[in-house]
């Protein structure tokens, strides 16, 4: 335990100390880079500001994450039996993965009211959808040959085979998708705010304040974003731990 925790802890403390010392020694102005202590003070003092912005962006990310995961899973299950559909969806998945897809928000914004959060949520949904879809489709294809033969020897119906073999086998893949998509959802939600619209989320606040002189507040927002990111990370891992208990040992290996 000590061996695992000590090196990163030492590194982190050293980094923060170096940061603080550097600012004091070379007399950097606070509007360029704030001291870590000032950031913490700002985070505590203006916690309600950070909290409100985090709530907006976090909600966008969460809605998109849930919708995208559900759609990704359902569509993958449906397309598993129709080669044609997966052949159509796969190129789109490859393309979305390769291009800076978040720029689509610029287009979506025109389709909705100025104060709408829906374009951002749609964008998160799209990004999450393809990540989860690809993983679940992969899981559905990689079935244990012996288990499939066994089900056939029982003359099991396709539905029984789906329920008893394919879906349980797919769950770890699904959660790999969700775990990958969770930080992505937050990043997309943040970046979506760069394209105009209501400026009440973390992304707008960060880019606004980091360009202003109140850098400490900007960093407090960044800290808020980091904490929301960690929350998403931990949440998706916890969910997997609860839903796929038989994988616990395999993963700890």
């Amino acid at each position, binding site marked *: 335990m000590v061996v695992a925790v000590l090196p990163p802890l030492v590194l982190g403390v050293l980094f923060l100390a170096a940061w603080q010392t550097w600012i004091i020694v070379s007399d950097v102005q606070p509007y360029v880079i704030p001291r870590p202590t000032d950031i913490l003070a700002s985070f505590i003092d203006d916690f309600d500001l950070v909290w409100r912005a985090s709530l907006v962006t976090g909600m966008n990310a969460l809605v998109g994450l849930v919708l995208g995961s559900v759609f990704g899973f359902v569509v993958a299950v449906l397309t598993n039996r129709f080669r044609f559909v997966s052949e159509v969806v796969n190129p789109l998945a490859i393309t979305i993965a390769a291009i800076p897809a978040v720029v689509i928000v610029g287009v979506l914004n025109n389709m909705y009211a100025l104060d709408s959060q829906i374009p951002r949520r749609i964008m998160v949904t799209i990004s999450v959808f393809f990540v989860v879809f690809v993983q679940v489709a992969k899981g559905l294809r990689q079935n*244990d040959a012996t288990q499939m033969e066994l089900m056939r020897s*029982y*003359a099991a119906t396709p539905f*029984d085979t789906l329920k008893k073999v394919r879906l349980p086998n797919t769950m770890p893949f699904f959660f790999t998708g969700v775990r990958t998509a969770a930080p992505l959802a937050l990043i997309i939600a943040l970046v979506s705010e760069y394209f105009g619209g209501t400026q009440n989320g973390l992304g707008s606040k960060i880019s606004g304040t980091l360009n202003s002189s109140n850098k400490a507040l900007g960093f407090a927002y960044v800290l808020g974003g980091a904490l929301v990111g960690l929350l998403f990370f931990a949440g998706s891992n916890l969910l997997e731990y609860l839903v796929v208990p*038989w994988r616990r040992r*395999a993963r700890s290996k």
Partner: protein
Amino acid sequence: METPMTSPSQPAVVVTGLNKIFNHGQPNQVDALVDIDLEVQPGEFISLIGPSGCGKSTLLRLVADLLEPTSGAVTINGKSAHQARVDQDYGMAFQQSGLFEWRSVERNIELPLELKGWDKAKRRERAKEMLELVKLPEFAQHMPWQLSGGMQQRVAIARALASHPKLLLMDEPFGALDEMTREHMQAELLRICAAAGTTVIFVTHSIPEAVYLADRVVVMSPRPGRITEIVNVGLGRGRTELTREAGEFFARVTEVREALRGIEMADAARGIEDR
């Protein structure tokens, strides 16, 4: 539906004029099995042995109706192979245990019964009985990964026997086990099958295993896959660890080995002609 009468004299499995050709008519056509005839008596233990590519696993899968024959027929207790599969008249075990890692040992054994629509209490009772049969009663609640390879394979056998089938089809079930565990499992299998009077078709590539288990060893050859010889083992029932050291056992092992060597030499001769 009317079930055919099973008289004691009716064979457990009848294979007649069975052919299996993969990729028929294509450049990569493979004659997996040619003109296979085989009759297995109730309670008999048959080993299928031969070099890889001889079609022994294919034959087993045709009996199980996991594959469709190109021509010919398989009957199991007077029923078609398909009907036998739908009725779960046979149990099957593979080289991989194929246990579901998300189900406890007990629930793995219950799987075929669940698919048959048994209620929970009955399933639980049968799983308990099966676990006692394979001598793992205290492991009902364990997860598969908590078991050794040999124990996992015993659970797979328990699962195969859960619906009390008259016929057991096994595809190298002990192939992945170490020699000591393997011999132990062989003795266990004989005990279990003798107790229930189960008919067994057992695919293996181990000569001693084939001889030790079987009443008859069916020797097969590749390209095209066919039966070249059937060796009557004649070691009787109630085989023990001492059987493995008996002169008669070695005589049968030698007989099977020579039958296989004949195939090898014929193969090599053909290889030379081809060139």
